[in-house]
């Protein structure tokens, strides 16, 4: 069954390619510093450029200001965006791929009217507020409290691993609004203005030196009830609502980026001489590992295209997306580990990193990839329990015993 051949979209592809070539900023995305301001200015500016160019919200419905592209056109966009090395930042993706779609599916008319245009135009940057010190992989263990007092929710507690909180205007905040509730019940999804009194943001330095994530503290932060998205107590469903929205199509860009990195690494191995004076590629162990990575990245790409095709056909996306997420994370990590190894002594110098497309810094940050957004271990549990129907790992019973 042919769901669409890219050949049909040649004209569209040419248009995208031409626009990106003329507009993607030269040079890397500025690193995320403690205050995040340079990065913030960069991504706001880029989102505004996308908006003016007519490329904001490519997968959003037209009535919400989106471009409403077909699934196949979205894929062409993601392919070309990856080929053009288009800017990538959590500050953009949370708003565009998560907060926006959530408001479209579950928000009130007022929430949509205020926030959606500001998200599309790059006026506001969003961050997520799901994980907590005691609720990371086990998201349902959320404890951060939201007490309903009059027409407000009063928030006390903390969130952690919030990407780019230091540069965000709004946060998707998931709170426990029913005292005594547990697990998936009694949670609410609220829009939190990051400038509210009582919020303290503490940026956390990652091992690559950047401040990718933050801890956020809430001390009697008052949020209007009108900012609750969906019903009070319905936060878990709202959190899951976006899962079906994009159906893994943006993953296609990630697969192309990683394949492009492998090709760069192959070129590096051909051009660079090792300590023995021979090209690194003459080392059979390196050639072997590069060949394995190249094949595995091709497999990963095939898996995501197939998943995209399947999702266009199925009513509800299955757990198969977990395959792609798990393999993408582990392959990326393996790739940067190999690159670090190939750099030999040069790998010890951060200053020399631009030489190799910031390979050293990317290597250092690659340790976060198999943890953030669900650890590889939790993803394996999901595959085993939801796809293979293996019995649940009953941690509660084990702890009690």
């Amino acid at each position, binding site marked *: *069954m*042919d*769901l*669409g*051949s*890219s050949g049909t979209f040649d004209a569209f592809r040419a248009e995208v390619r031409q626009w990106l070539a003329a507009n993607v900023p030269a040079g890397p995305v500025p690193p995320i510093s403690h205050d995040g301001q340079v990065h913030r200015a960069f991504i706001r500016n880029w989102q505004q450029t996308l908006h003016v160019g007519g490329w904001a919200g490519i997968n959003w419905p037209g009535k919400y200001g989106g471009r409403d592209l077909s699934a*196949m056109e979205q*894929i062409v966009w993601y*392919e070309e965006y990856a*080929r053009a090395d288009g800017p990538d930042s959590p500050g953009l993706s949370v708003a565009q791929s998560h907060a926006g779609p959530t408001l479209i599916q579950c928000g009130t008319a007022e929430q949509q009217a205020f926030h959606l245009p500001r998200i599309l135009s790059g006026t506001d940057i969003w961050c997520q507020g799901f994980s907590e010190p005691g609720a990371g992989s086990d998201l349902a263990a959320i404890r951060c409290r939201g007490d309903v007092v009059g027409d407000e929710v009063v928030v006390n507690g903390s969130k952690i691993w919030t990407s780019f909180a230091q540069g965000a205007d709004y946060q998707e905040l998931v709170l426990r609004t029913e005292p005594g509730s547990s697990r998936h019940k009694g949670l609410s999804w609220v829009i939190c203005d990051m400038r509210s009194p009582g919020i303290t943001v503490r940026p956390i330095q990652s091992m690559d030196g950047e401040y990718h994530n933050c801890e956020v503290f809430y001390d009697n932060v008052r949020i209007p009830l009108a900012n609750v998205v969906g019903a009070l107590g319905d936060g878990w469903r709202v959190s899951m609502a976006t899962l079906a929205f994009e159906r893994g199509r943006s993953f296609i860009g990630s697969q*192309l980026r990683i*394949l*492009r990195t492998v*090709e760069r690494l*192959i070129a590096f191995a051909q051009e660079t001489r090792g300590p023995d004076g021979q090209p690194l*590629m003459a080392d*059979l162990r390196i*050639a*072997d*590992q*590069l*060949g*394995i990575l*190249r*094949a*595995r990245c*091709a*497999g*990963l*790409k*095939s*898996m995501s*295209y*197939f*998943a*995209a*095709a*399947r999702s*266009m*056909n199925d009513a509800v996306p299955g757990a*198969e997306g977990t*395959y792609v997420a*798990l*393999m993408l994370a582990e392959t990326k990590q393996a790739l940067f580990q190999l690159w670090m190894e190939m750099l030999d002594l040069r790998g010890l110098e951060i200053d020399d990193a631009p030489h190799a497309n910031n390979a050293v810094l990317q290597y250092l940050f690659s340790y976060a990839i198999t943890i953030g957004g669900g650890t590889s*271990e939790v*993803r*394996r*549990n999901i*595959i*085993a*329990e939801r*796809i*293979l*129907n*293996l*019995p*649940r*790992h*009953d941690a509660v019973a084990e702890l009690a015993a």
Partner: protein
Amino acid sequence: MTLSLPDAEQLALVRGVADFLAGEFPLTRFRGGVPCDIGRWPDLASLGIFGIMLPEADGGLGLGVVEAALVARELGQVLMSPAVIAGLLAPQVAARAGEAALCGALVAGERRVGIALGTLGDEARVADCHTTAAYGGPFLLIEGETLSLIEAGQRALDCIDGTVQLTAATMPGTVLARIEAPDLALAAQLLAAGLLTGLLETTRNMAADYARTRVQFGRPIGAFQAIKHRCADAALGAEMCWTQLWAAANALASGQADAEFQVRSAKWLAGDEALKAARFDIQVHGGMGFTQEADAQLILKRCHVLNQMFGNPRLVPAQLVLLPLEV
């Protein structure tokens, strides 16, 4: 790039083959521990899959390489004899070489055909070539882009996989047909990838089934993360290999510039993942796993046989680095 899924006709073909194989070729057929598929060549021929890609004018099904790969996956799931690759391809070799009578006999299953896994000195190592006078079967040898149907004197070898009849054929033998066919040489790699992918899927199911039902320490062993994570790895490997098989088959069918890379990657990945899963499958079965009495050993041994097909897997990754790839 094309975004596609198997269509209704392809799914119907697969279902027909799967139903036939489930009834006629269950894994229990190997309980005797001897090669048993070559004796049932006419049954396989009755399925109509020999010469699956042969034009209808030549007596074939006239299907494409995509359909052939889908069928190979089903055959792999029941651990069909590796010679089935020759069964699927040999009629085309004969037809293109102008040997119409041989072609017809191969399609009908009247002539059986073995598969050369590779060569060793002046001998070819051949799997499941029926050497008795009644059949006098030739075997298919693939060297680079040259495909040959050969008859040669053979001596029997004792294969680690007792369900495969391994022989050493003295080369060069008598050539019945020989053609240059880069498309068929790649198709052979693709079909081997299909057999390995199917074998991997069976391994995944076998390991997960056992992990779900075997109880120790008061719970099914699949509840332990040490077990379930390796089951998940087998499932991920199977998903990657199946989708890569699909992508490679379509790349070959549409003449994509990087078809060779895609096909050879599919073969290597399937061999690598199938071997990892087969090793785990023995481990998860515990004491029974390493006995001749359980099926886990069958899978591991067959996996080694398929991995030796058409090029040493140890040398393949370094070759993959150099092949053209569209990114």
